[in-house]
């Protein structure tokens, strides 16, 4: 790969540009749209030129939407807060539950270990709707209906298997002797786990956590069915711009831009770990 001809480098450049164009054009378009009024969005034909307005953002942030039908209250910032709360707590819980379990499957061969591991992974197999239908009944009965706790619990179905799968592989690739060395030196199991195993698996944990965060953040169906308006995340909340008197595309665009920002920030922050963290572990044989 070191000896690339200029021709090949040009081809590579063109291909990367094409890839960026395909994947980023819609994002760019949404970004531009977020600075347009609805009237500008709905021009025929669509155009790149417009006088930008920040009205969409100000209305999202201040929570007041001016439409034909008058002034409406928006709970977007609250939705955003809910998304942050639900996703981060869900991922944190999934890490607290999943990392020790992943460690157990990686380090100990105990009776039923493979069965338990497979069962946990298989939670990803159950179609969300299948679980959701009776779940709303049970949640109603035990009072978890429309609570953050209930939602965070359900989100474990998304986050936990992913974290287990990736982190387990990561632990398996760390030589057990490193941990033994620490224990023999006189440290308890718990000290070894927290000071050796976890720091060493950090890239894997970070990468798995980030992916789990993205999937939680993007969830729609669980939140739609189980959350009432004051607990719903942005994915459901952004639908509030679909009003009987028209769809507020500008605001939806601004909402998407704002809703992507926290995850993007997290990804940039975790960039160092992302590729490294996925490269050992799960994915490997």
């Amino acid at each position, binding site marked *: 790969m070191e000896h690339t001809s200029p021709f090949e480098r040009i081809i590579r450049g063109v291909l990367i540009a094409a890839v960026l164009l395909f994947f980023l054009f819609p994002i760019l378009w949404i970004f531009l749209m977020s600075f347009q009024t609805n009237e500008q969005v709905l021009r025929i034909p669509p155009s790149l030129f417009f006088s930008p307005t920040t009205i969409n953002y100000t209305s999202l942030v201040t929570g007041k939407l001016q439409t034909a039908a008058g002034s409406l209250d928006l709970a977007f910032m609250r939705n955003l807060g809910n998304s942050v709360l639900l996703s981060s707590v869900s991922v944190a819980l999934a890490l607290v539950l999943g990392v020790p379990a992943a460690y157990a499957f990686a380090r100990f061969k105990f009776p039923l270990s493979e069965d338990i591991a497979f069962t946990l992974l298989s939670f990803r197999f159950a179609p969300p709707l299948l679980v959701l239908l009776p779940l709303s009944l049970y949640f109603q009965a035990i009072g978890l209906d429309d609570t953050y706790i209930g939602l965070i619990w359900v989100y474990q179905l998304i986050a936990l298997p992913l974290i287990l799968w990736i982190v387990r592989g990561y632990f398996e690739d760390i*030589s*057990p*002797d*490193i941990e*033994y*060395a*620490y*224990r*023999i*030196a*006189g*440290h*308890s*199991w718990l*000290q070894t786990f927290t000071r*050796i195993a976890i*720091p*060493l698996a950090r890239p894997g944990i970070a990468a798995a956590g980030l992916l789990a965060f993205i999937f939680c953040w993007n969830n729609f169906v669980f939140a739609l069915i189980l959350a009432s308006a004051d607990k719903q995340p942005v994915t459901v909340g952004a639908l509030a711009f679909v009003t009987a008197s028209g769809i507020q595309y500008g605001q939806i665009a601004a909402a998407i831009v704002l809703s992507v920002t926290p995850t993007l920030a997290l990804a940039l922050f975790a960039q160092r770990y992302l590729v490294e963290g996925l490269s050992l572990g799960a994915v490997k044989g």
Partner: protein
Amino acid sequence: MAQIELRSLTKSYKTGKVLKGVSLVAEQGEIVCVFGPSGVGKTVLLRLIAGVEELDAGAIFLEGRDVTDAPPETRGVGIAFQNFALFPHMTAFDNIGSALTAHGASASIIKAKVEKVAALLKITHVLSHLPRALSNGQKQRTALARALAADPKIVLLDDPLRNVDAKLRYEMRLELPSLLRASGATVLYVTQDYKEAMAIGDRIAVLVDGRFEQIAAPPAIYRGPASVSVARLFGDPSINLIPIKPKATKDGAVCEIGGATVSLAEIHAATPGRSLLLGLRPESLNVSDQQAPDSFPVEVMAVTPLNEKTVLLLRTHDGQEIFASEAGVENETRQPGPAFARFDATRALVFDEASGARIEGRA
């Protein structure tokens, strides 16, 4: 007081029984080399003692205390793994200090001890480096330093020189015994290199087929291996084994090798007709153009000069190939062709072919 006492340890895996009753007693300050071919369970034994693997049966006493069921952190041993197993996220200093932090030593004590052991092992200049910035030799010394830093009464070393280059291995072989002795610890040293075992160990415990076949001081083992398997493990080239059936004559015991009749030591007169194996170390064979009493005719097939010796491949008249070695490489006249080989009957080893046990030839 025995520092290490192993009582009939057994351990098996799905693939089969690895240890079938291993017992050993090691005294304070003693270096015992656990030696054996690869895959025989030497590492498993160390792991059992360290407490990171669980016994099937048996008992382990360390410093007089039954630790059979004790978790590893309470056993008070120092260990160096073959693959070093350094903590990749800690500096060499922290790696070495890790054994001290566990016992709540103060920062200044840790610093003093780490620097002392680092100085002994000549790695003071790399203490602030992370393992990935260390050379293999430095890693190996760091691992050793870590095992020794807390002045453990018992040190377990798992083939620590295996993954370092030849030059360093040679150096360390010279340095290690004094270093270990200075620490005053009882050392179990696992190796699969007989020279290393002989250079380092006060005693060598030879692990063969899940048991200690012999535990003895290096010269004793070399000269008087308990069995064929032990004899085979020591020496390079390895010992020649020639099947014989001694006969008692009026002059004492004799046997036939390649058509010639050769005298044996007196004691073998008692074993006429039994199938025995005659064990001849290559260096105890004398090859000459001249026929002499008790010599037997051979064909020199190949002459391989090594640095400090010359190895000859011989073939007896009944087709058996044996090695002989001669000190030095000066004898350039040695050519392939017919010759005669002779050995000192008093130094020859004789084994029972069926059991493999050595038949005591001399005191």
